[in-house]
C-alpha cells in the first residue's frame, strides 16, 4: 500500500509523456486553421492575446479552488497540496483527451485555447474533489481524475457538437457536472459515522480566513473564466459585464439571506465563502447572450439566495436522509447554481436573448450533463470502493497527518475567553507552564508545540507531557503521551494506560483564567477547588487519585460538558 500511490503517479506521468510524444504538437502558422472572423490577425497572435485570460483561469484553478477548501482545521495541507497534484495531472490528461475527441484521433496542435480548455476540464475534478474532501486518499483521487475528465470530455462533446447548445461559462458542463459527479462518488463512499458530524470536520478562525483568500481569488477572476473561450470580442465584452454584475448582485443577496437564516441575524462564514460565488456559476451559460446587466443581476441574485438556502436546509438533509456527505457543500455552490444557469439560459432563449441555440437543446444539454455526471460518478464510486480500496479509515478522515510528514505537532486548543454555557462536545483546556509565558491568552487559538520545545520543557520542568484531545462522553481523554523513557508517536498516540480527567462543572471566565495564568502555574492544580476544577462524578475518590498522579505532570485540564 505504501508503494501504491508513488507508483501510480509515476506510471500515469510516464504514460502522459508517451501519449504527448505520439499525439501532441505545437500550434504553428502552417497547421493552424484561419478563423473566419479574424482576417488581419493570425491564429497564433490571437492565441497570445488569450494568454492573460489563461493566467486568470490558472490562478482560479490553483489558488482559488485550492484555498477555498482550506477551511478544515486539520486538512489545509491536503486541500492545497492534493489540489495542485490533481490539477497538474488533470490538465495533461485533459489536453490529450479533449484533443483526441475533437480531432477524431489525429495529431493535436496545442495553442493557448487548448490550455484554457484543459484547465476547464480540471475544474470539474476540483469541484468533485470538494464533495469528497477529506474522505479519500490521493491514490483514489488520481483514478477519479482520469475517469472524470474522460466522462466530462464525452459529455462536453455531446453538448457542444451534437446538441450545439450554448454554454460559454460552462455552468452545466463544468459546474453542474462536477458537483453531481462528486455527489455520486461521495454517496457511494458514505460511512455511517459521518452522519453525526466528524470530530475533525471543523474549522478554526484562521482556517476560515484562509478559505476567504480562495473565495476572493475566484470572485475576482470569474469574469475571465466565463469569457475566456468567447469567439468574438463582442461576446467577450458581454460575458465580462454580465458575469461582473451577476457576481456583485449575488454578494448582496447572499449576505442578506445568510443574515436572514442565521440566529439573530448573524452571518455565517460558510455562506459568505461559497454563496458569493454562486452568481458567477449561474450566469455562465447565458453570459454571452443579450440578457443586459439587469438580467445578469436577477440571475446572480437568485443564485445567491438558492445557494444560501441550500447550505442551510439542503446539505443537512442530504447527509441525513440521502446519505450523501458533501464536505465543501459543492452542491450549493456549483450544483444548484449550475442548474439555475441552465434554466436561466432556457428562459433567456425563450425571451429571445440569443439565436445560437434552441430551448430544447439547452434542456437536453442540462439533462445530459446531470445524467452522465451521476452515472459516471456512481461507477467511479464503485470502482473506488471495491477495486482501489485505499480509502483511509473513518478516524483518519479530514486529517493531514495521514499523508503529510511534519514535525509531530501537538495542537492544543486554547479558548481565549469563556467556555460557553452549552457545548455539545467536551472541550479541554490545557494550561501549560512554558507555553503561556510566551503565548498569552488569545494570541492564538491553537498553540502548537514542536518536539524540540517539548524536549526543552521536559528538561526544565521534568514532566511527562500529555496531549489531551476531545473525545466523546463525559471524560476528557489524554490521547497523546510523551515520556521520559521514549517517545511514542503516532498521530493518535495510543497510551498504555489512559488517564482520565474529570470535566469541570462551571466555566471559568476570561479574567479568571487570565488571573490564573498570571499568578503562576501551580495555582491551576486541580485540587484547588475554588478554581472550579472539582471532580464531579461518582467515582470521586478514584478521580482524586488520578489527579494526584497528574500533579507531577504539571498539567491541568479543565473541561466543560453539557
Amino acid at each position: 500500500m505504501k508503494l501504491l500511490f508513488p507508483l501510480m503517479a509515476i506510471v500515469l506521468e510516464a504514460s502522459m509523456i508517451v501519449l504527448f510524444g505520439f499525439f501532441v504538437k505545437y500550434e504553428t502558422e502552417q497547421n493552424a486553421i484561419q478563423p473566419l472572423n479574424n482576417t488581419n490577425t493570425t491564429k497564433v497572435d490571437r492565441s497570445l492575446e488569450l494568454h492573460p485570460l489563461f493566467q486568470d483561469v490558472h490562478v482560479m484553478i490553483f489558488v482559488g479552488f485550492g484555498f477555498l477548501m482550506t477551511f478544515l482545521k486539520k486538512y489545509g495541507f491536503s486541500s492545497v497540496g492534493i489540489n495542485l497534484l490533481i490539477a497538474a495531472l488533470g490538465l495533461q490528461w485533459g489536453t490529450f483527451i479533449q484533443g483526441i475527441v475533437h480531432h477524431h484521433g489525429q495529431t493535436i496542435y496545442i495553442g493557448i485555447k487548448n490550455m484554457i480548455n484543459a484547465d476547464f476540464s480540471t475544474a470539474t475534478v476540483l469541484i468533485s474533489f470538494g464533495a469528497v474532501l477529506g474522505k479519500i486518499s490521493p491514490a483514489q483521487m488520481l483514478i477519479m481524475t482520469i475517469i472524470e475528465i474522460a466522462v466530462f470530455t464525452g459529455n462536453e462533446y455531446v453538448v457542444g457538437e451534437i446538441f450545439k447548445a450554448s454554454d460559454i461559462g460552462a455552468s452545466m458542463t463544468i459546474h453542474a457536472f462536477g458537483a453531481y459527479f462528486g455527489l455520486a462518488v461521495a454517496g457511494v463512499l458514505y460511512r455511517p459515522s459521518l452522519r453525526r458530524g466528524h470530530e475533525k470536520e471543523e474549522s478554526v478562525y484562521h482556517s476560515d480566513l484562509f478559505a476567504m483568500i480562495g473565495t476572493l481569488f475566484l470572485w475576482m477572476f470569474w469574469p475571465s473564466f466565463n469569457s475566456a473561450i468567447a469567439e468574438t470580442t463582442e461576446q467577450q465584452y458581454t460575458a465580462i459585464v454580465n458575469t461582473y454584475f451577476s457576481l456583485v448582485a449575488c454578494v448582496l443577496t447572499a449576505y442578506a439571506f445568510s443574515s436572514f437564516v442565521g440566529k439573530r441575524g448573524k452571518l455565517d462564514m460558510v455562506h459568505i465563502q461559497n454563496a458569493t460565488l454562486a452568481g458567477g456559476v449561474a450566469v455562465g451559460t447565458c453570459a454571452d447572450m443579450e440578457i443586459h446587466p439587469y438580467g445578469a443581476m436577477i440571475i446572480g441574485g437568485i443564485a445567491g439566495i438558492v445557494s444560501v438556502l441550500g447550505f442551510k436546509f439542503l446539505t443537512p438533509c442530504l447527509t441525513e436522509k440521502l446519505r450523501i456527505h458533501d464536505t465543501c457543500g459543492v452542491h450549493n455552490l456549483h450544483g444548484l447554481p449550475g442548474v439555475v444557469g441552465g434554466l436561466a439560459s432556457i428562459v433567456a432563449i425563450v425571451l429571445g436573448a440569443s439565436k445560437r441555440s434552441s430551448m430544447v437543446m439547452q434542456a437536453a444539454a442540462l439533462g445530459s450533463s446531470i445524467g452522465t455526471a451521476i452515472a459516471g460518478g456512481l461507477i467511479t464510486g464503485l470502482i473506488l470502493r471495491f477495486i482501489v480500496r485505499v480509502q483511509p479509515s473513518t478516524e483518519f478522515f479530514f486529517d493531514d497527518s495521514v499523508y503529510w510528514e511534519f514535525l509531530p505537532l501537538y495542537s492544543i486548543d486554547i479558548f481565549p475567553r469563556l467556555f460557553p454555557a452549552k457545548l455539545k462536545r467536551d472541550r479541554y483546556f490545557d494550561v501549560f507552564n512554558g507555553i503561556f509565558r510566551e503565548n498569552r491568552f488569545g494570541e492564538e487559538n491553537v498553540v502548537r508545540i514542536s518536539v524540540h520545545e517539548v524536549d526543552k520543557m521536559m528538561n526544565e520542568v521534568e514532566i511527562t507531557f500529555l496531549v489531551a484531545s476531545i473525545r466523546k462522553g463525559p471524560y476528557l481523554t489524554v490521547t497523546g503521551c510523551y515520556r521520559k523513557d521514549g517517545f511514542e508517536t503516532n498521530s493518535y498516540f495510543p497510551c498504555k494506560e489512559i488517564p482520565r480527567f474529570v470535566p469541570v462543572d462551571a466555566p471559568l471566565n476570561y479574567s479568571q483564567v487570565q488571573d490564573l495564568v498570571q499568578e503562576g502555574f501551580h495555582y491551576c492544580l486541580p485540587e484547588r477547588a475554588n478554581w472550579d476544577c472539582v471532580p464531579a462524578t461518582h467515582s470521586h475518590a478514584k478521580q482524586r487519585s488520578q489527579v494526584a498522579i497528574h500533579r507531577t505532570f504539571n498539567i491541568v485540564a479543565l473541561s466543560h460538558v453539557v
Partner: protein
Amino acid sequence: MPHGHRQGHRMGSKYPPSMRGCLPLWTLVLEVALIVIFFFFTSSDTSSQDPKKLMGNFRVLQDVTIMVALGFGFLNSSLRRYGWSSVAFNLFLLALGVQWAVLMDGFLERPFRKKVVIKLSSIKLATMSAMSVVISAGAVLGKANLLQLTLMTLVEVTVFVTMRMIDRQYLSMDDHVSMMHIHVFATYFGLMVAWFLSRCLNERVTEEKNQTAKSSSLFTMLGTLFLWIFWPSFNSALLDIPKERKNAVFNTYYALAASAVTAISVSALTHPQGKINMTHIHNAVLAGGVAVGPSCHLIASPWLAMLLGFMAGLISIWGALCLPEYFNHVLGIHDTCGVHYTFGFPGLLGGIAYILLIIYEVSWTKQSMIGYQLFIGIGTLSLAMASGLIAGVLTGLVLNLKICKGPHAAKYFDDQVFWEFPHLAIGF
C-alpha cells in the same frame, strides 16, 4: 454543513441587537431597487469592440478589483478578533459600491441622456470610486455594523462622484487628478464618521481587543503586498495618452520602492532597540504610491518620484508614531487602521506636490497663469477635504441614530456580534 454544530449563546446585558429584521430586508430592497434602476436606465454597449482596447481595459479593471477586494480586504484584517468582518464586509461594500457608482457616474456625467451605457471603463471607474468607501471603512473598522456601512457606502459614493463632477465641470480638472484626491476625501470622511462612532469607546475595550495578533499580521501583509504590487495600475488607470501612462507606471513604481525602503529603515530607527514594527510596514510602504498619485504623469525623472516616496514614507511613519496618541486622547477620534497616516497625509503631500509641479511647469510658459493654476489646484484639494469632512459629519450623525442598531461600544472590534461561531465558542 461543513462546519458542524451551531450553538446557542447565553444572553448578556450588552447583547447586540438582532440584525435579522433590518439587514436582510434593507439589503434585498436595495438590490431589487438597483435591478429596477438598471432595467430602466442602463443599456449595454452595442458598438463594435476593438479587441486590444477591450483586453487593455479588462486588465486594468482586474488589477483594480484585486486591489479593492483582496488588497484592502486583508489590509484591514489586522485586528485579532475582527478578521472575518474585515474581509467579508469589504467584499460586500465593494459589490454595493460598484453598482451604485456605475449609476451615479452615468447619471452625473450626462444628466440629460436617458440611458447609461455600461462599458468596461465605466465599471473600472466605479470600482475606483468604490475604493473611497473601503478606505473610509478602515477608519471606522470594528465600530459599525453592516447596515451602517451600507448607508455610509451610499452617501460616500454619491458625494464622491458629485465632487468629481464638480471638479470636472467647474474647475476643469481632468479625471485622473480628481480621482487621485480620493485618498484625502476618503480619509477625512472616514475620520469624521469614526469620530461620531468612537465617542462612547472606553479604554478597556480598546486595549483588550484593538491589538494585532501575529498571524493576522501576516494576513495584513498579504493585503499590503497585493496593494503594493498593483498600485502602478491604479495610478495609471485613468490616463489615456500612452506616454503619460508609461510615466505614471514608472513613477509610481519607484515611489513605492523608495517608500518601502524608507518605511522599514525609519521604523527600525525610531525603535529603541532597532526593531521593525510590523504595523508601520503595513501602512507606510504604501504611502509612496498615494503621494505620487496626482502628479505621477507629470514627473519627468524618477528621482523626483523617489523623493516624494521618501517623504511620504517619513510622514507616514511620523504619523504612525504621533497620531494615535493625539487622536485618541485629545480629539477623541479613534482611527482603527491608521487611515489618516496611510492615506490622509501622503494624499495631502501628493496634492501639494501636484500644485507645485503645475506651477513650476506653467511658470516656464505663461507667467499670468500662475495665479489661476494655484487657485484651481488649491480649490480642488480643499474641495476634496471639505466635502469629505462635511459629508462625514452628516453621515456620522445619521449612523448614530437608533434606527441603525449600531453595536454597543463594549462589543466593538468583535466578530462575534456579526458571525455565527461554531468552533470558537465564545460566550457573551
